[in-house]
């Protein structure tokens, strides 16, 4: 699964720490999700979408192997 978290963060000019604080997780966890090492739960994905003002599908996309 790929994601556009970095792009969405850049649009808002947020650091990983800013995003982490807004969705209630640690900065290291934001990093793990952003680089695709950890697939977030539906709840966390929805929280991210809400905070970015975007749909979940626009932030997270399935890849061929998924």
């Amino acid at each position: 699964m790929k994601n556009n978290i970095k792009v969405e963060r850049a649009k808002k000019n947020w650091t990983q720490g800013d995003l982490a604080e807004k969705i209630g997780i640690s900065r290291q966890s934001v990093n793990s999700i952003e680089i695709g090492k950890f697939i977030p739960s539906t709840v966390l994905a929805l929280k991210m979408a809400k905070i970015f003002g975007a749909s979940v599908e626009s932030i997270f996309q399935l890849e061929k192997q998924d």
Partner: protein
Amino acid sequence: MEKIQKPKNNQIALYSILWSLLYATCMIVIKKFDPSKTLGIMISFIPAITFVLFINRFIKNINLMDEVERRIQLEAAVWAFSLGLLLLMTLGLLDLVVTLKKEYWGNISFIIPGFFVFYAIGIVISRRKYNQL
């Protein structure tokens, strides 16, 4: 959005120290004062009280963690359990072939610290996996 609640690691440390101290005290009492069998059995179960408090705090702390950190803790626990089991089973087989020295591998108090080491190994492996090291 929910506010981040920081895990209380200092409380875990406090309870683990309490448990270790009580365990050591009970061991000294049993070894030095040679109590009756019934009293000895009762003393042996005393550290379980602080252990329950420690585990209770540890689990509460896990509930305060975010989902990535929870996964890391879960994987570390699986590593610790699996490696501990592997160690015990291997020693069990070895004991059939060569008699293990009671002062070293044949002694359970020599093996127990291994579980903490395995947990630490599990934490490192899992943190590396999720790019948190």
